[in-house]
């Protein structure tokens, strides 16, 4: 982690995914959390990163981002 905003957002999003990953409906919860607490700009950067390959994004985070796009 450093001063790179995208890197920071990826790290934060992975933390969210890890903490909500204990739930059966983790994907929906992660998407909902990003919707309720992240500014659109932050979500857009993260989704852009996912579109560019999303290296380092956890599996359930990728699934959650798909839901966020719906």
């Amino acid at each position, binding site marked *: *982690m450093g*001063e790179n*905003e995208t890197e*920071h*957002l990826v790290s*934060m999003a992975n*933390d*969210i995914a*890890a*903490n909500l*990953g*204990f*739930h059966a409906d983790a994907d929906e919860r992660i998407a909902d*959390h990003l*919707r*309720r*607490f*992240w*500014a*659109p*700009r*932050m979500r857009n950067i993260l989704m852009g990163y996912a579109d560019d390959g999303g290296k380092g994004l956890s599996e359930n985070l990728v699934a959650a981002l798909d839901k966020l796009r719906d």
Partner: protein
Amino acid sequence: MSELIQSSQDLGTPPPRGTTGQVSLEIDGHEVSVSKGTSLIRAAAIAGISIPKLCATDSLDAFGSCRMCLVEIDGRRGTPASCTTSVEEGMVVHTQSGKLERLRKNILELYISDHPLDCDTCPADGDCELQDVAADLGVKDSRYGLNGLNHLGAEKDQSNPYFTFDPSQCIVCYRCVRACDDIQGTFALTGDGRGFASKISAGQMESFMDSECVSCGACVNSCPTAALEEKSVIKLGLPEKSTLTTCAYCGVGCTFNVETRGEEVIRMVPSKQGKANEGHACVKGRFAFEYYKHGDRITEPMIRDSIDEAWREVSWEEAIAFTARRFREIQAKHGRDSIGGITSSRCSNEETYLVQKLVRAAFGNNNVDTCARVCHSPTGYGLKTTLGESAGTQAFESVASADVVILIGANPTEAHPVFASRLKHRLREGARLIVVDPRKIALVDSPHVRAEHHLQLLPGSNVAFVNAMAHVIVSEGLADEKYVNERCEIPSWKIWSEFIMREENSPESLQSVTGIDATELRQAARLYASAGNGAIYYGLGVTEHSQGSTMVMGIANLAMVTGNLGREGVGVSPLRGQNNVQGSCDMGSFPHELPGYRHVSDPEVRTLFENEWQVKLQQDPGLRIPNMFDAAIHGNFKGLYCQGEDIAQSDPNTHHVETAMKSLECLVVQDLFLNETARFAHVFLPGSTFLEKNGTFTNAERRISMVRKVMPSRSGKEDWEITVDLANELGYPMTYSHPSEIMDEIARLTPTFTGVSYDKLNRLGSIQWPCNEEAPDGTPTMHVDEFVRGKGYFAITGFVPTRERSTRRFPLLLTTGRILSQYNVGAQTRRTANTVWADQDVLEIHPVDAEDRGINNGDWVGIKSRAGDTVLHAIVTDKVQPGVVYTTFHFPLTGANIVTTDNSDWATNCPEYKVTAVQVTRVTQPSEWQKQQQAFNRKQLAFLDKARGPGR
């Protein structure tokens, strides 16, 4: 006659505790009816009959030593002391007779024979109970003469910066000793000897400063003479005016009488009517107020185009116009979302409400956040998720009914001292204590208080600990299933109980993670679950972690599964750091929530505010403070209005924060002093102290209390007026003429505040929200019949270890905290005499770790993390465990946050201040960063000097 109407009078003894029923008696021919167990002196006072007294006061249990309050009772022999004699049915009492007068005069003459007769020059002239009693009895001289053995030559103790102890004025009534023992609970004072030889001293015949005294001032408050006297009274004379207000320090929110002479504060006297403090105070609230007149105060608005040029003092009009123009230019160039605002927990409800309104309505975005982001944002998330409301569940007085208390990650004797005194009082009565903390805090073992269990967990293992506690309770059949079935969501209970029963959550499985012996953890869990009323109090040691929100939910789970919510003596109580953390959160300071914790995406809520504010609101959350920093460095966030916060000192990873500050095109700081953040500012708007404005603060028990203006604002404007001016200049009209109108608007828009008004606050003294139609006088205990969300929700709290782990390179874990004499970033307390107790941050290190590194007590040590490094002095102590080091963040030049990282709570981005992997080495000089800071400070102070001119 009502007992309530006597509120400001000293009734001699406290009300009886734990008794029921009334007793009728006759005092001096008057029929009196009082509660069973009431003392005669109190019954008489309630009836309007004053009995002379010296050792008695209604804040302390009766002592019966001065023999001044003697009375006669029909049918009884002798003259019993009315303070130690309880009322009885049908009693006939006489408080005045020739015999009583003779006895009282004789006692008083004995006192006077060993007391300096210097009333005319005594600082307490006019505020001395001995003088009052002598006047009432008409005693001017002593028949015993003044030339016998006496204590008139006793040496004065002037060691404390705030008060003197003059033994020659002491009448050995023991009120100070009892206040220290019973109210403060420090047991620092001693009464030694008997008869003529008896005397009072601090510690074992030490000076106050050398003793265990914590300078709470309870002794000074209780002293009936000038023996213990504020130095400010000695120097400036007795006050002429008293104004009831609320302390501007910690989240206890004590009520004080600010006593003034003209525009000079003489002293702060805690109010007995204050429900948060009931007449008690601490060294900060009572004594550390001189910062209001410190020479560092900036009272003129200042602007500059660049942080590399000198400040220019300008008129308010010019400063506001400059700010508005800059903000609009930035928005025109970089978009509506390129600016934002930060509210402060040091500001009033009305001020924080206005700043978030300014951001949402005038800036047109939701980029508003508050310093609660970096302390208790996980409390909001965790308690809202599980219980339905982002607030503690109890009143402070609830602890008096607790049977077992778990204290997690909180150090109340340092950070919330007045609550600590309440807690210690209850513990001395027999309640049991479990301390969960990596450090050996004072409450683990102090006079007459000893924790039954100190679970000295490793930093970063909170969630593992709380899961292990819950595992024991559920697996050993200690859950209150009746409560769970009636009060909680059964599907969530089923999923959670299955999760928590897993072997991976057992204390034995988690022992290597938490560092807590499994057997002891099991004992602690059994104690909490089965000892009656179980209350949990917690602090930043819970929230400031990568799983801060998870831990808060884990605590709520623990309380629900044991049925410890919804009544007196139980509950989940966050101890809030600053005076208005609760209020700033309530007022809609978070970017995703409008006032009353309602999400910005809710169209009904938005419509309500849009209609009132006459503006269209954004439906998506804005940026939080750390997100603002990231966006600023990235180049998308360019303007910030920062009211009452010092983010450059208080926020983690200073390098990152300073880079963000330097990236801004317009940073506006509204504060009392040129703080660390203001060094990066383009506009400085001088703020007002709590003495200079009207408003309200809301403390950790949801108690809204009035802040009343004691003197005019030194800058010419109260802080809310500055925000109003800025909004108007930006073209968004705000037309308030008094903060009461702002509160009226809050009440119109916020369901939990609909019953709140300044009129009601003045009438009731304070109000705990929710205050509305259902609870017109407020709500001391929440979730009584049902949770705010309906049924309690058991949240899954899986343990996710922090990324911040000790390594070969950084083998120690740093955790941070606070000390009693300093407050937060120290902007106020560093500018008071409190620096005699601490004038720098120090690093606590265990003897084993110190020896490994060749570090001795007092050595300069360098502390380095992956974020940065700094240098400070070492204290070698076993308060910390091996592998853990500890420091505070009160002094900017220490720069503790140069070391902390930008790891944060997964749900809220609250920084993980409590866990940083570090290495500590012995060094001989300040760090490079510290040298750069000193150079930068000198440059910025020179810029300030240019603006202010010589001699200011």
